[in-house]
């Protein structure tokens, strides 16, 4: 081998348990949690797809799924973090109007 491989941890030899099931379970859990807590992203992804009859169904389903998760309050943590980030984006140096104020 010619190069250093970043995915080889220094003590990887002590951790050789087969991990396919573990990996599949992680990916499944993460996908499920993100589908529930990040429906806003699924919705905006659907809206960005090139238009077509199949896409229209996806967009419709994504919109309904987002509405469902929002009603249950599951999208709130992401929405709160996004608002905070937008406030940081809009912040200006002292003495200068913020982006939001300048726009209004």
């Amino acid at each position: 081998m010619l190069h250093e491989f970043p995915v080889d941890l220094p003590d990887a030899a002590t951790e050789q348990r087969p991990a396919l099931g573990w990996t599949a379970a992680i990916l499944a859990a993460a996908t499920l949690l993100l589908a529930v807590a990040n429906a806003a992203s699924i919705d905006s992804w659907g809206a960005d797809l090139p238009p077509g009859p199949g896409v229209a169904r996806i967009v419709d389903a994504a919109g309904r799924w987002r509405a469902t998760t929002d009603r249950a309050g599951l999208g709130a943590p992401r929405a709160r973090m996004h608002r905070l980030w937008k406030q940081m984006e809009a912040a200006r140096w002292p003495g200068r109007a913020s982006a939001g104020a300048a726009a209004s």
Partner: protein
Amino acid sequence: MLFPTLTFGVFFLIVFALAWSAPSNEWRKILLLVASWVFYGAWDWRFVPLLIFSALMNWAVARGIAGDRFAEHRKLLLFCGVALNLLILGFFKYFEFFTEQVGATLAALGFERDLPMLQVILPIGISFFTFQGISYIVDVYRRRVQPAELLDILLLMSFFPHLVAGPIVRAADLVPQFRAVPRLDRSMVSMALLLIVWGLFKKTVIASELAVDFVDPVFADPAAHSAADLVLAAYGYAVQIYCDFSAYTDMAIGLAALLGYRFPRNFNQPYRSQSLQEFWRRWHITLSQWLRDYLYIEALGGSRGGKLATYRNLILTMLLGGLWHGANWTFVIWGGLHGGALAIERLSADSAPKRWPPLPGWARLLLTFHVVVLGWIFFRAASLADAMAYLGGIAIPFGRPLVVTATPLVVLLIAFGLAIHAAPQRWMSDAAARLRRFPAPLAGAALAALILVVDAMRFEGVAPFIYYRF
């Protein structure tokens, strides 16, 4: 199909499930090959045959080289193989640049002609798969590797995680992995997941925010910005290009690892370098090593011809490395600047009197960083005139606006992008060592939480990676 999109996420989950449920290693490779062609075809199906032709050609040339007993025949085959690779690359990448330069030269000499303009479309990733092809046939010629099976070479050159922007993975690294049945272990998977999330953060938060909010507007109209903005935008671009390109290769390394394959490291905190030579051991490592092994040493002779030849070869290597990035004088200047600086470094190491005290480490770091940033101004500018106007704005700040348009968030992201170069080098492997002890549901929840945070901060829309156009 860009890595940080839901479309790619769905594609990857399907490929992951199919690859790991394949009945044999051969079927797994066939599945990965078809998936790679689908991935490449998502940009432009017309270039999938070019990718297949390039792999077939390099496979056939390598077979011919390995099977021929006569040294002259072997050499001729190698020459033809390298020439054909360069011809393909040259046509797609440099045809228009070449015709423009010929047209301008003829016009200057009073022979104005309408030269054919073909509007050649650049196939994405062509530089990367061409370099892989060249390194394969040279390695077979030098007997560093055995010729590989057709399926392995097709997959080596088409494998979707590294196909469009590297890292440049050599046959000696990847073909033995293709021959064995891949196996996952928790260490590899933990590191892979962290690399993917870290790459996602660097690309969608740092690089995108800096590009859209600050760097692109300043480079688009340097005359409308203050000297302080120009300096900050140059630093900002240094951070942006690092976070953009290293994010791609981090994600590529992570994705390949989830499929059971190891890719080499491509970045190692480059802005902590104390010399240009060290910088090139930390930046785009697989390209630097390719240029060193196949161009500087193999084609130009390296340092075998004495000191003057060494300096010349360093400059030539970097000039050609610059031209590899694209057909534009800005890339030639960028390469020439790096080549010249490398030659000066070598010259000063060769000829400085021993009693001269060396510069302190922090001064060498600052000097190296600013030479690199100067190079990035040429690299980023649309033309040589734009680059000179940008530098002029920094050198002569009078009569320009005094306002700094960089926001506190932009300054914070630039500072953060530089500060990560001072982080302990093992921070991610230490985190991966902890993650691998988590039960799967907890690790899945942690992964989802990290992605959720990144997604809440990400800039709307995802711009293509900078290195897609090379």
